[in-house]
């Protein structure tokens, strides 16, 4: 009930992000959502994309420091308070979030996040009536 995300180590330096994006372009991979977190010297670029497993293999082959991770994606109705409801389900279970970002999918908001226990988080969200996005929900858009 999770989706694949690519995490890539890139330096905080001009040209590193575009080099990565050009590699994805070369492989014919389409981006759906992305975010970058950084410290003074290091950055991690996180990407949701089409064909994540193929993208991962392609980048690994090219010598990129890439990791294929599982993240949770929750679809939210377009009205106030829905994000609070979804996150509330997790905090009620005592789960914490390592990072979170969001994007729009067909007029609806999608929250993407990783928790300290994704298995328990999925259970809690399903029990709480939250709609989890699956990889097939993304690919038919592309």
């Amino acid at each position: 009930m999770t989706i694949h995300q690519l995490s890539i180590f890139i330096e905080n330096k001009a040209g590193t992000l575009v080099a990565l994006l050009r590699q994805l372009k070369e492989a014919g991979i389409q981006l759906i959502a992305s975010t970058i977190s950084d410290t003074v010297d290091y950055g991690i670029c996180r990407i949701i994309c089409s064909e994540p497993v193929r993208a991962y293999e392609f980048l690994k082959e090219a010598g990129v420091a890439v990791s294929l991770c599982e993240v949770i994606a929750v679809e939210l109705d377009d009205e106030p308070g829905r994000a609070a409801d979804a996150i509330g389900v997790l905090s009620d279970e005592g789960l914490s979030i390592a990072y979170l970002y969001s994007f729009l999918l067909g007029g609806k908001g999608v929250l993407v996040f990783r928790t300290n226990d994704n298995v328990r988080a999925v259970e809690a969200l399903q029990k709480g009536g939250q709609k989890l996005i699956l990889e097939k929900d993304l690919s038919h858009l592309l």
Partner: protein
Amino acid sequence: MIWNEHKETMSRDELSAMQGHRLHKMVDYVYHNVPFYRKKLQELDLIPDDIRTIEDIVKLPYTTKQDLRDNYPYGLQAAPQSEIIRIHASSGTTGNPTIVGYTRRDVEIWAECMARCLTAYGMTRDDTFSVSYGYGLFTGGLGAHYGVEKVGGAVVPASTGNTEKHIRLIRDLGIDGIACTPSYALHLAEVMENLGIDKKDIKLRIGAFGAEPWTENMRQEIESRLGLKAYNLYGLSEIMGPCVSFECECQSGSHINEDHFYPEIIDPNTLEPLGRGKQGELVFTTLTKQGMPLLRYRTRDLCSLIEGDDCPCGRTMVRMSPVMGRSDDMLIIRGINVFPSQVESVILDIPECAPRYLLIVDRVDNLDTLTVQVEMRPEYFAGADNIDAITDLAKKVAFKLRSVLSVNALVKIRQPGSLERSMGKGKYVIDNRILK
């Protein structure tokens, strides 16, 4: 002032005769006590009696740092262990450090030579002298220490670190002289200014500076900021430690204690001896050492021997120009010798690191800094999803470097493929320190 007028102002003819006599005895001594040298001389078809005058020295083989490493730890020691009263160690290029054992007589000659240096700087038994070279395996601290005691001054064994406390002692005790690295002297000046202590509040008049290359500009800066006269002090642990050569009041080249350490300048490529005034690699033969005597030891320091033996101070001992380079890739960071090959061996031992690195040396607030950039292997990142994977690796590399180099390095992990493939040779060091 001259500590040992008889030796230091000897005529050149007398000196050469003495050097020749001592060299003959030295070759005879190592031939019978160091299998390494006996074998080398036999390969050249030489016996000790072939070496009669100092000019015969050119027949002798060279000794290198590699020879010291290959014969670790005691292979080049000539004296029996029962005669050794002190052991120092300095960093080797990889793995094995260089071990130097000293007999009681060696330690006495060391103090004698150091007393010559300090007396030339104007130090007397009335003076209080702070020794701010590191005490320990490094020869700087104890070497200078014994010299001050030999002259009869009072030693303040301040060593390194705790600069503020040290400055208070300099002011409150009215310390007359200091022995340290020139960059530490500039650091002292800076901290002193920050504390609001004026150079008029302190009595320092002598600085004995060495263990790293420095320049005329640095001398002027140190002299004006600390209000003292800054003198060069040169030495290396393989030969003895600080005391090998020193500047007199003329400050125009460093007199070599050549009755104990015979200098030559050679072309580092052809190994041919070069004449006075020619720039090349400095080579020393110990003429009196018992513990670990060395024949024609290649220091890798580049300098020249100054023409003319008519220094106005009255000393006849030959002078060497300031050392301004190395014929190998050794870096001196805060007075500590660092070889890129040491960094390389650390990195090769860490599976998460690719065998590519870049060393960047800089000088910030007058103190040397070392940054080591190293690439992460892409495989290591698989399964990782946060910055800790990178910062943990940086910590691990820094810890391992510290234990091998004895220098704190700032480690930056680079993404795969960002450094040039330069293992072994090529451009892997950027030294931004400006020595002008």
